[in-house]
């Protein structure tokens, strides 16, 4: 088959599909095992320095913030990050100095809130390297190929652009249509963390709202930490099997973390904490500010419960619930501050 073009980006997290099959065979038990543990234990056991990591949700929607803060607290270093739909999660993790390399689909912005001062500074000063470019669908399909146990998946995006030139994809002549087609390589992240609304102790998970790309990401992950708003009985899962987004046998740890997405959104439960995000966006304009933020919210507390007390406790969380239900208008302090 004729290769027409090869991207020059670094290929992160690719394995021969047979090697991956053997890894699954050896590491993913099909037994129903109680996987509950603390976030601290899950991070120390399942995430190593140098790992290629990916975070579930949509960057600032349904994000496993407890795991993210714990990665920072345990001072994990030299991570390679999947900058898939990466927003707040990636910004904090890169600014904290945990990441050396990133593959960028959407990575250095907070959507309507503007660009990410912290992580952009890390790249613009050479402390984090963007080793490959890709698009959101491209990253999605890296995980899809991984989930399917394939070396790559064909797709018709990226073609003709610098995004392709700087990606790890290749272009061949499609043997069926004769047209150029892009081959997007599989990805198997070493460690993935996903936050969900409900899970049982074995790791069966239900997600409200869009699953985004978590079906694929959960299945291609080599090690998967699930944090859940609520632990539920397996009977609840089995009474609504059509709602199960992630089955237990791909999961390695289950941690119950109420409000575990804060300051990010949890669809149908609580809204973004825009005031907290505004504080981060303001502080992250300098290295000292990042350190101040981390000292205040990560290093000075033992765990996520301590963090929740610090950010405003039950009263704040109830207000975020009301905003999510449209019972109170949202505020946009990052917007009024700029004008």
């Amino acid at each position: 088959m004729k290769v027409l073009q090869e991207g020059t980006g670094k290929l992160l997290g690719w394995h021969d599909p047979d090697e991956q099959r053997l890894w699954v065979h050896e590491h993913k038990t099909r037994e129903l095992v109680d996987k509950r543990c603390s976030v601290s234990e899950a991070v120390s056991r399942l995430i190593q320095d140098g790992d290629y990591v990916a975070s579930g949700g949509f960057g600032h929607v349904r994000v496993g913030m407890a795991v993210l803060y714990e990665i920072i607290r345990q001072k994990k270093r030299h991570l390679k990050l999947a900058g898939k739909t990466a927003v707040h999660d990636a910004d904090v993790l890169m600014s904290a100095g945990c990441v050396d390399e990133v593959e960028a689909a959407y990575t250095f912005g907070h959507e309507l809130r503007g660009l990410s001062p912290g992580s952009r500074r890390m790249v613009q000063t050479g402390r984090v390297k963007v080793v490959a470019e890709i698009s959101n669908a491209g990253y999605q399909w890296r995980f899809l190929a991984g989930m399917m146990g394939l070396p790559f998946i064909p797709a018709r995006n990226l073609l003709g652009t610098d995004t392709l030139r700087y990606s790890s994809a290749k272009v061949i002549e499609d043997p069926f249509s004769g047209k150029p087609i892009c081959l997007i390589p599989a990805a198997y992240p070493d460690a993935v963390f996903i936050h969900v609304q409900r899970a049982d102790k074995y790791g069966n998970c239900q997600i409200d709202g869009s699953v985004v790309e978590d079906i694929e990401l959960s299945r291609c992950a080599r090690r998967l930490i699930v944090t859940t708003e609520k632990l539920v009985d397996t009977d609840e899962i089995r009474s609504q099997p059509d709602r199960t987004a992630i089955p237990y046998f791909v999961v390695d740890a289950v941690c119950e973390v109420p409000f575990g997405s804060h300051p990010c959104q949890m669809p149908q439960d609580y809204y973004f904490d825009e005031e907290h995000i505004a504080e981060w966006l303001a502080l992250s304009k300098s290295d000292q500010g990042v350190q101040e933020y981390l000292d205040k919210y990560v290093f000075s507390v033992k765990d996520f419960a301590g963090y929740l007390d610090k950010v405003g406790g039950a009263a704040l969380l109830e207000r975020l619930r009301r905003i999510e239900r449209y019972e109170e208008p949202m505020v946009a302090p990052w917007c009024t501050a700029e004008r």
Partner: protein
Amino acid sequence: MGSTSQDPRYTPTELLACVASGFLEDGCSVFVGTGLPLIATMLAQRTHAPGLLIFFEAGSFGPQLKALPISVGDSRTLHRAISASSMHDLMSISQAGFVDYGFLGGAQMDSRGNINTTVIGDHALPKARLPGSGGANDVASFAHRTLIIMRQSERSFVGKLDFLTTPGHLDGPGGRQRAGLPVGDGPYRVVTQLAVYDFDEGTKRLRLHSLHPGVDVAAVQKNSGFSILVPERVAVSPAPTAEQLRLLREVIDPAGIVIGK
């Protein structure tokens, strides 16, 4: 010198949103990005296009939007949606041809509607790192037609992009087909604070389509790093109606998050 006399009844951003909303026809489908495209889409749905089928990349199909989402993955993108699905589902049906319009913003655009949202300067050590493609490359590859909405200046309308993130007409007529992109029209209209543009059929270069009220041709050329084709007859874009302005200010973006800029 170029005139851009501004009507005091509305801001350039409000005009931009109103003109852009006019391109979305009732009963068509649109894949929307964050920011101004989203505002224009919400306005269209509340005025002339109640049957607009809206898609958001995180997996929202057919919402009837009530409040401005901060993120294209925000649960507000799911208000009265017909389906809360996945990115894979949405990107796949887009690739298969179900998206009429892709609606994008951009940092830099060239004369062929190619867009940069990746870096300003060198890729390895950029002067300014931008978010990257996000879903933009996908939208512009898969939609039958791409609508681009951005503020134009000599710095944003450039002769050569620092990085070609998202495909427009690539290197000209037939470029998309040669690259293997799905069949479709590519960039269809570009809306800025000054004018509306289309693309010349023979060269696929940017061509003036209509001037916004109070703007002249010289102003359009002055605010561009490349020369823009000007046809013999140029229409004037419609000014915002009082109802459009009320919806923007009181209903769609009361906090002024997008239209306040």
